[in-house]
């Protein structure tokens, strides 16, 4: 994995604004929360907020605006009354390959513009239009759209991030820093913004500021590859080689195949006089770099312009559908999702939106149906397995959920969520407690969070290992010292332990 796909230089201009869809882990998390919530009610509300944060993150990664708290919440059981809204109809795609890209680009922009027109007082449609313009190389228009968003809602953090990204692509890092800071001020939980801000600061040779920010990010997002790697870069530039080494080593711990981190590590180790470690890291770098270069060359040769435009156009329809669905205009939403799939039969963005929609309306069978389609389209994406597991858990189908989690782990053995969730299922059923403990420990190792400590504590307690449970809760407390619940639980457990020791 490389941080920056800068290697195909001719494609650079369009790649920067590429709209990749990330897999939400929402349903997988929901499953874990359901399990944990049943056992630790005190933790549930906190984890629920965690879930909200995850949802927000996943939406942001998809380029969507966050759900407006003030927007009418869709009823979990009933479809909104406006579902009879007239669906959009779309023209047939041109037969000529040469014309398809132009046609779809125009359709994408027109679609985003239509959403803006349909929701004139909302800020999110302008966000979609901004992303669309930016994707097709019109940064000036994109900038205006982000500004429009801010006119409608001056607290729209993503708009500041969008403006910052445009400023950064123009080399105006001063402006980028201002926008990123504003964005973080409004929403400190926005993913990747600190890392982006740090990169802009580094471009301005403000290394100490960048390092400080990245240290913060490392504390709040210990699994952020970007933060760890960039921390190495910042300290390397500051010639604080020991700290730089720690940064690169953290990045490698997160992604052991990350070639560039080995490169940084080799260089700082050499400068720090650690020649053996430098040589070892350089060897690794060369190994991974060769693979990367081959893969990129391959990718460059396989570059499918029409496919990329189809993907982007489908994405716009997917998000447009999401906005209509949220407003209760279900048929219109569905017509956009179907259009996305017509444009790109294997499209995942529209299907993800459909999953979210069905999930919101508690149509779990539909959720599972669409997720199965997603799994068939992307068999190597563990996220789909996690989501399927979550859906099965909602149906109380623990066996299927367990199987889904095992599939997720087969694809990604380092999935902390899958480990924790499996442990949660065993905890709930009371079966395989030994494996449950193993899984909880692995989850904690992969993601040292207080939630995973609590899970381990619960399993230990269930297995009769009160000292183990106490140790896990103590760790949770050290991770979240201000959480009063952990203190209370610890006291309860302490009392129970003392009681059990009395003859």
């Amino acid at each position, binding site marked *: 994995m490389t941080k920056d796909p800068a*290697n195909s230089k*001719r494609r650079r201009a369009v790649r920067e604004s590429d709209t990749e869809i990330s897999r939400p882990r929402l349903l997988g998390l929901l499953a874990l929360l359901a399990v944990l919530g049943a056992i630790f009610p005190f933790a549930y509300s906190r984890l629920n907020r965690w879930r909200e944060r995850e949802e927000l993150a996943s939406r942001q990664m998809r380029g969507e605006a966050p759900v407006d708290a003030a927007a009418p919440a869709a009823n979990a059981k009933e479809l909104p009354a406006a579902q009879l809204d007239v669906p959009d109809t779309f023209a047939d795609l041109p037969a000529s390959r040469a014309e398809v*890209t132009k046609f779809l680009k125009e359709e994408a922009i027109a679609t985003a513009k239509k959403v803006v027109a349909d929701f004139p007082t909302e800020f999110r449609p302008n966000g979609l239009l901004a992303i669309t313009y930016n994707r097709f190389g019109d940064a000036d228009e994109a900038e205006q759209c982000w500004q429009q968003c801010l006119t409608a809602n001056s607290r729209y953090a993503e708009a500041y991030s969008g403006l910052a990204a445009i400023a950064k692509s123009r*080399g105006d890092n001063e402006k980028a820093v201002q926008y990123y800071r504003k964005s973080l001020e409004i929403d400190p939980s926005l993913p990747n913004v600190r890392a982006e801000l740090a990169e802009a600061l580094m471009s301005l*040779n403000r290394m100490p500021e960048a390092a400080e920010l990245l240290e913060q990010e490392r504390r709040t997002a210990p699994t952020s590859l970007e933060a760890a790697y960039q921390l190495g870069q910042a300290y390397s530039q500051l010639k604080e080689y020991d700290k730089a080494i720690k940064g690169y080593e953290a990045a490698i711990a997160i992604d052991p195949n990350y070639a560039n981190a080995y490169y940084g590590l080799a260089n700082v180790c050499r400068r720090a006089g650690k020649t053996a470690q430098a040589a070892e890291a350089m060897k690794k770098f060369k190994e991974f770099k060769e693979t990367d*270069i081959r893969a990129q060359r391959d990718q460059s040769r396989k570059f499918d312009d029409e496919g990329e*435009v189809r993907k982007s156009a489908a994405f716009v329809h997917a998000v447009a559908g999401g906005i209509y669905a949220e407003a209760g205009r279900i048929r219109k939403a569905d017509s956009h999702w179907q259009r996305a799939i017509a444009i790109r039969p294997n499209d995942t963005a529209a299907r993800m939106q459909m999953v979210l929609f069905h999930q919101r309306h508690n149509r779990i069978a539909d959720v599972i149906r669409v997720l199965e389609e997603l799994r068939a389209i992307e068999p190597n994406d563990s996220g789909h397995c996690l989501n399927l597991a979550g859906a099965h858990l909602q149906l109380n189908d623990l066996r299927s959920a367990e199987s889904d989690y095992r599939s997720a782990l087969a694809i990604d053995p380092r999935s902390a969520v899958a480990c924790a969730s499996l442990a949660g299922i065993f905890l709930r059923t009371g079966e395989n407690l030994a494996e449950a403990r193993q899984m909880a420990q692995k989850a904690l190792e992969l993601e040292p969070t207080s939630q995973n400590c609590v899970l381990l504590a619960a399993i230990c307690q269930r297995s009769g290992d009160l000292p183990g449970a106490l140790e896990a809760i103590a760790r949770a407390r050290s991770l979240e010292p201000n959480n009063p619940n952990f203190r209370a639980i610890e006291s309860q457990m302490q009392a129970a332990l003392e009681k059990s020791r009395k003859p």
Partner: protein
Amino acid sequence: MGLTQQQGALGNSVPGILRAIAAFAWAMWAVAPGLGAEKCPIRLHEVTKETGVSFRHTDGSSGRRFIVETVTAGLAVFDYDGDGLADIYYVNGAPLPGCTDPSKPKNALYRNEGNWKFRDVTEESGVGDAGFGMGVTVADYDNDGDADLYVSNFGPNVLYRNNGDGTFRNATSEAGVAAGDTVGAGVAFLDIDKDGDLDLYAANYVQFTFETNVDRTVDGFPEYAGPKDYPHEPDLLFRNEGNGKFTDISRESGIASVASSGMGMVCADFDRDGDTDIFVLNDVAGNSLWVNDGSGRFQNEAVERGFAFNMNGHELGAMGVDCGDYDNDGWLDFFMTSYSGELPVLFHNLGDGFLEDATLVSGAGAGSLQHVNWGNGFIDFDHDGLSDLFIANGHLQDNIDQYSDTYTYKARNLVLRNIGGGRFSNVSEQAGDGLLPKHSGRGAVFGDLDLDGDEDVVILNSREASTLLRNDSDPRNHWVRIELRGLQASRDAVGAQVTVVAGDLSQVREVHSGRGYQSHWGSQLDFGLGSHDRIDRVEVRWLGGAVQTIANLGIDRRWVIFEGRPDAVPLERPTGKPQD
């Protein structure tokens, strides 16, 4: 005699008073409200129209978008007739299949007639190669006292041997350096084995034929394919046998062991071990650093030494590279230009055989991100004793404006002023009207075209006329220009390093043949001295290790230092007539 020539000539004889007057006048102008209120001492003024240079570059395009169109071409500044005035040689493209341009483009040589007048002497000099030109280098490869030319082509390369009378003859066949039928790139003469004969390195780009042309589109817009779309090609190294013939030693020297996508190059003794190493940029493939073992055998150690990639370990769309000591620490550093969306890279020489990416901490990437950067040079425009950076810009996708408003096909060039402490500042907005025009630049070269002591600029623009910039920077600072004449070493002393010490200012330069973006300049080494009014010591490290020291060299003059001779010889004021 033109004003600038007068300045140069008078400057040599009565430097004190006139220099003070010039400096006062400049200072008044520089601070006059509305004229040049910014306190940037660098001023580049465009003089193209008055020079008589009518060269127009062609890339031979017809809309079929062959990759070779994007990378042509470099140029050279050198004194072909030995009259003391630097002349200009432009490399040109040629019509490619489908091109209906009725003109018959060819390379062109413009003789410097003095006073910013140039005359096209292509026909009479015999250097108007009509091949599809890519790069050029210059050196006296036969040690007969005149400058020879080597041109790389898409197709066979060409060696022009100087007859010493203002004419050249094509010596390619007899020398054996046609280098096959490849897509050529940067070229350089260097003495790989310190035998006094200049050997020849010829980089190659990719394996391309019209039949294997790759068609690409972006968002439906046609686009030139990139170097990853074609197989790579090894570079070539020729050993000079000393009898006018060269032998291909690519395989035995180690050079043939790597196939890549060569672009600009420069040769330099970066580790000061007494032999010349070879720096070749490779387009999106990781650069090569061929470390010389002293005997003319090389090993590519670019990755380990820190030259292959930028600080992130990324291979960039590398274009041109120059060499200079930007922080005056005595070690040669390297500046590499790159593609849009990437920063160029300043490789700081750590002095222990390793280089580190100092782009961010130095500010050397300022203003470059949106442009494809090509020709570049470490040039001390204002003679303050610190090497500034000049960067020629322009995209290679001629229709980029149609699908991106972040990048533009035509762009302004950049000047980054070295402000000391290892930092650069983008002064392009304040550095004169020469930085205003937008073109799609490729090669850029530098030389004292008007003999006023400072470095002027010539840029080859793709599909357009070239640009000539007169350096009108603050003349208050002192300078010295030095040429070397080798006896044991090659006559041009390619590979020799000169250190000039003036008080607390110590600067090092090396004589290169071939540098920047597939171009050549710099046979005369230019040292800015700032306010230092005397030179304490000049030290020459001839290739092979002999060290010669000369004390008390006069300032604001040109000197020739002969190998083994204890004193320097002032370079005579040019007669404007070719040498005998």
